């Protein structure tokens, strides 16, 4: 299915974007960055390479919120993983293709504006990367941002304990008769 999705997306995401989606995942595969060994330990869907890619970003997206809860970026990434669990398989596959692409310097530059690996960027640099990312008017940038950052923010704060850190007193108590 994945290969055919690439072909279909080719014309619709513009020449460069389409070419990236069509060849980037295969490049990532050849370079050993992409493998499908199944989910990482403790995750429903995210693979080990996704966890390594996304943990530094998660820490910056939710920095103050995690601090307030005394929680780790990993807890938040697991909440995002649960949100991904609700998505259709095709939607998840698209996200995995984007994550695979972001393993490659050239594609990372195209999508986020940053060549450097996220793991090699300090907090201040990652903040700049994120700020530059959402100014890019490119289909792949948009898909990656809206598929990652927005659901990550939702995933974290929708958890009952995290929700309480905002000053929200919480919902009424259900009594089941």
């Amino acid at each position, binding site marked *: 299915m994945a290969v055919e999705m690439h072909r279909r997306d080719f014309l619709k995401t513009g020449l460069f974007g389409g070419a990236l989606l069509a060849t980037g995942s295969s490049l990532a595969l050849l370079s050993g960055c992409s493998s499908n060994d199944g989910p990482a330990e403790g995750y429903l869907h995210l693979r080990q390479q996704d966890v390594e890619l996304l943990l530094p970003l998660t820490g910056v*997206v939710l920095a103050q919120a995690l601090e307030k809860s005394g929680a780790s970026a990993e807890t938040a990434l697991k909440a995002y993983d649960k949100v991904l669990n609700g998505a259709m398989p095709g939607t998840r596959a698209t996200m995995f293709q984007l994550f695979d692409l972001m393993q490659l310097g050239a594609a990372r530059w195209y999508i986020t504006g940053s060549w450097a690996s996220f793991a090699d960027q300090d907090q201040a640099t990652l903040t700049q990367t994120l700020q530059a990312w959402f100014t890019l008017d490119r289909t792949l940038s948009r898909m990656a941002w809206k598929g990652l950052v927005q659901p990550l923010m939702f995933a974290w704060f929708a958890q009952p304990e995290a929700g309480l850190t905002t000053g929200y007193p919480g919902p009424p108590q259900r009594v089941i008769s």
Partner: protein
Amino acid sequence: MQDLSTLKIQSKDPWKDPKANGWDVIDGRQELSDRTLEADVVIVGSGAGGGVSAEILSQKGLKVILVEAARLKSSDEFNLNEAEAYHDLYQEGGMRATKDGTMSIMQGRAVGGTTVVNWTSSFRTPVQTLDFWRDQFGVEGMDEAAMAPWFAQMEKRLKVMKWVAHNSNNQIMQDACQSLGWQSDVIPRNVSGCWNLGYCGMGCPTNAKQSMLVTTIPAAMDAGATLLHSAQADTLIIEGDKVTGVRIKTLDNNKIATGATLTLKAATVIVSGGSIQSPALLLRSQVPDPHERVGKRTFTHPTSFAFGIFDKEIAPYYGAPQSIYCDEFSHQDGIAGKAGYKMEMMALHPGMVGAFVAGFGQQAWDEISQLPNMGGAIAMIRDGFHEQSQGGAVELRDNGEPVIDYPINEYVLEGTRRAHLSMVEMFFAAGAKKVRPSHSQADYYTSWKDAQARLSKLAYVPVATGIGCAHVMGGLAMGSDESQCVVNSDGSYKHLDGLYVMDGSVFPTSVGANPQLSIYGVSARNATLLADKLKA
């Protein structure tokens, strides 16, 4: 400080023991081998269109099987946990978005469809919209006078009344509109004995909301209908030029096919899956479609957001989410001019704020941590009226899943910029100390003058502009114009016998108001016409 966290709430769940009610419920998760069922009418989808149709047809003595992809989940399981509610009661667990990710789509997936999670706003279809449908698409028999009795019937059935106990968030809009001289009025809601808690979007825990789950579907069950849940319509069975049934794949708890196929045979099949799912079923079934219109012109009311911080408590998470609206800008440039938008308020629970605050890190945290003093407003653009507003197209992925390709063009972005200005002005008029539109590059503005200057410098590009939607309409347009429409005004499909469409996908444009009552009214009319025809 408002705090409902110690309040104990209790209600009777009508679905606690369906068997004791004499209801015939088939749980798709338990169906492990193929079998065939027969009925007079199979209805695919149990939301606003399917629920209303099921009640009307069953009560006329027709044997109905109502099919729903979602698992049956009812009030005893509505635990007000935001993460669980979105995961279980929304399409793709809340992850649904347009193809390029620009627009989040909040669409229900439940027995009862989106009516289980909507915010209860119940408007009749605006007369300008009905006239446009008649004039531009040849929709017949649905002018304001002809539709009035159908809307009245559904308002009575679902106890629609103007709300009285506005929360502070809605009070903001009422006060601001009064001081600015803008039109505003009270929203009618479909509730009975509402506790004014504010959790409509997570499944009403007290069954006060008159969703299909607690009204028309139980009535259909009482009249002998069968509910088949956890069961996804795969393809229509087409013999010659006639639809004779539906192939169903049953689903497990993870929405994965169990491997069993149920064949539902019926002389009449009604598709009520909602826009996106209904066009997708027809596309998967490769129905005849000479002008290739199936799935085209799908609309969403592209919605923008703004947040105001006050020096007093607003508690935007409690109380009826929407009870005041503003139509000042809905038709300012005429029905088909530049983007018109309806303004309402939004319930703000922590996850929802996280999703729509449009930002990250320190800026997002500074905003979210002021939630108790925050107000939230939305503006919904009427799409489908202007020639540059052709909406989206439903497509199939290679595995048959639907995806909607909705390019955000200048028409939507220009309307969003004006909508941001209106919402920001409204918040300042109501006394907000700081206001920020949902735009990744926007800061807080501290005065209306400051906001006007700085907002004009923002780049309105799709990724930075926070856009979502909660109303999906169109994709199987009704009307007499064959070059644009695939369904007749009575809901019958133009190119196959035995196939009807009864849901929001028949609307040739967006509604221009929260669509539930439009779907109820049109479906009640067309289901009644169909019942009379089948019983003749």
